[in-house]
């Protein structure tokens, strides 16, 4: 009943809007970037592209907003601005929007909020003891968080299985999503090594760049990894930071693992076949699902108020929210597609569990050199 009520006044507010969609409702979609830009080659960009694609496909009005500084105040201002311009579906990618949701979701009951990468903890901020419904407006907000540790695990597992013994992890900034990827990666590599009984041969260099873009300094560090320390493959995890990894890899024919989306096309621009795989999470699908739920199918009610923890749902990898790309991954006979499918299956089945804590580096049999922030 509540939902329909919401629907009702939603429509009532926006009657005067011009845009109409197939469902007869009138929607305007806005996206607000967290601190980066929609070209951060990361979740902002993925989200933007998904929204845009959907909007164009369905003739819905769409625009994006960028906060003028990296602060809650600015993010809230951006949402205010979007709402003031009559946008009533607001997509917020990134864990930074917790405070924004706390403030704005109650303030605009008729606007629908879709928050990605938003865990309960992020949402609660410091209000740990009160009931969630008092923290934010459960009647117009949907949150999703991804189990990045899973694709991270798969990537690490795959890399070692493919025969790489000296791995590297280059994170952007040490933010939750990135950490989950990283720790998953380490666990995966460890599992594979143990499986093959080569714990003592496998090493992981682990570091964060402290920024989401590459530059001479980070490239220098990567050069050291590839050329001096003999690292074979680096999981470049965070926005444009892969550029430095790819730069260095290209010089010595090293390998790189992409992140978030299938980055093979981008990274291979540096050298053919550089990308052995990508640890993907399904931002785009989620965006699509929800936008269509609202705009096309009127099934928003099924989602609103939830904080989904998106990960593995099916034995069929492609139906999952987290996966490795089937086509661009460099399958080989030590790690075939079937091995991958098997892996997914056993993960779904729960035979394999991946720890998702982001406080401490997972215990491993293999050596992990934690270099912390290298810049």
């Amino acid at each position, binding site marked *: 009943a509540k939902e329909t009520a919401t629907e009702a006044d939603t429509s009532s507010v926006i009657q005067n809007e011009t845009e109409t969609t197939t469902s007869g409702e009138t929607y305007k979609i806005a996206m607000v970037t967290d601190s980066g830009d929609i070209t951060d080659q990361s979740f902002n960009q993925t989200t933007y592209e998904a929204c845009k694609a959907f909007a164009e496909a369905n003739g819905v009005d769409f625009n994006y907003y960028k906060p003028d500084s990296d*602060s809650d105040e600015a993010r809230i201002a951006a949402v205010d601005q979007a709402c*003031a311009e009559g946008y009533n579906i607001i997509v917020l990618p990134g864990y930074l929007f917790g405070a924004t949701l706390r403030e704005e979701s109650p303030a605009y009951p008729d606007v629908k909020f879709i928050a990605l990468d938003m865990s309960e903890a992020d949402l609660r901020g410091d209000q740990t003891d009160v009931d969630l419904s008092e923290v934010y407006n459960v009647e117009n907000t949907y949150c999703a968080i991804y189990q990045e540790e899973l694709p991270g695990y798969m990537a690490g597992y795959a890399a070692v299985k493919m025969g790489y013994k000296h791995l590297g992890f280059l994170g952007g900034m040490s933010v939750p999503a990135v950490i989950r990827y990283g720790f998953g990666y380490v666990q995966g590599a460890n599992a594979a090594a143990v499986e093959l009984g080569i714990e003592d041969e496998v090493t992981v260099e682990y570091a964060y760049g402290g920024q989401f873009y590459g530059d001479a300094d980070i490239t220098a560090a990567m050069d050291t990894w590839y050329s001096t320390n003999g690292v074979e493959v680096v999981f470049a995890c965070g926005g444009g930071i892969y550029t430095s990894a790819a730069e260095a890899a290209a010089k010595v024919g090293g390998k790189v693992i992409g992140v978030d989306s299938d980055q093979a096309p981008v990274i291979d621009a540096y050298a053919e076949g550089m990308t052995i795989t990508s640890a993907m999470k399904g931002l785009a699908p989620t965006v699509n699902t929800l936008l269509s739920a609202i705009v096309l199918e009127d099934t928003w009610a099924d989602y609103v108020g939830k904080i989904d923890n998106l990960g593995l749902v099916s034995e069929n990898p492609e139906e999952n929210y987290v996966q490795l790309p089937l086509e661009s991954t460099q399958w080989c006979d030590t790690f075939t597609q079937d091995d991958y499918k098997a892996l997914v299956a056993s993960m779904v089945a729960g035979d394999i569990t991946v720890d998702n804590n982001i406080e401490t580096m997972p215990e491993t049999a293999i050596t992990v050199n934690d270099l912390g922030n290298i810049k």
Partner: protein
Amino acid sequence: MNKKEKKSLLRNGAFQSLIASLACILIGLLVGYIVLLLINPAGAGKAIISILKNFMYYPTKVKALQYFGSTLVKTAPLLLCSLSVLFAYKVGLFNIGAAGQYVAGAGACLYCALAWNLPWYVCILAAVVVGAALAAISGLLKAYCNVNEVISCIMLNWIALYVVNMLLSTVKDASSPYSESLTAKNPGALIPSAGLSALFANNKYVTIALPLAVVVAILVWVLLEKTKLGYELKATGLNKQAAKYCGMREKYNIILTMAISGALAGMGAAFFYLTGVEQWAVTQTSVPGMGFNGIAAAFLGGLHPIGAIFSSYFIQHITSGGAYVDKSMYCAQISDLISALIIYLCGFVFFFKLWLNRVLDKRDEKRAAQGQKGGEA
């Protein structure tokens, strides 16, 4: 007769600064507009308007008020930075280090607030002291080693940034690159609003920092123009040797000047970060622009503390206004561009005044000459 009045008005320094500043603003906006036109003629007009409208962009009174508040909140630190710059400048020192002292101040007040849970006034004090200390280093270097303050300040800007990043990493959120939120960790460190926020649609960031900033501006003016200390400091700035000759402690004065200047910048940081409006990102790789914009505001304000109040507001106004530019056509940096242009143009102000006076002099001489001729004949 009225000729005379016109002349006296044109001769008036304050009036000259005013025209000059307005000219800078106009030209700056004009160039900005042209740039917009070049990029995309369609929305140029709309864009420049929304930059100028800033918060007035909101149809509803409430929101408008609220964001007027936000603009003011950011004006306070800018004002203090510009005071820092102009104070030093009046005393013959170019404190390009305001940026770094601002950083140091931010580091100090946030650390006191988050690591030691100290109340807001103590945190402000800490920021002031640390800012002063950092600037005093430049002062010391100039007084005793005659190191050009501009250079030492630039070095210290970077050092301050790196150190503060390291320091605040110890009080940052476990899972994000930001210093912990004051509201959560230590609300006592938030500068009280004393009911001011009510005036701005409960914009909780509006605090007594605003009136305080204005008061400081006035104090700076009094100190410079009316007091013995101001006289001494200016003398020292203009001629170190002469100051020594007539018994002023010239080294001490140079250091004192820098210290005061740094204190102002540090206070600016406190007035910003202790409102909780923004957290410090320990991954910052460049010094926040506040100090540099302070230079702009200082010169745009005709190097007058009271003028600085208005110029600071203006600069902040267009900076905030940049957020309302349609991102699908232009980028927010347009307003950075404009304020940068304005700084640049401020460089021409002195020449403008010089030129104006020359013109006036010429005119008067001509008059005088004619007068003489008349007399002889």
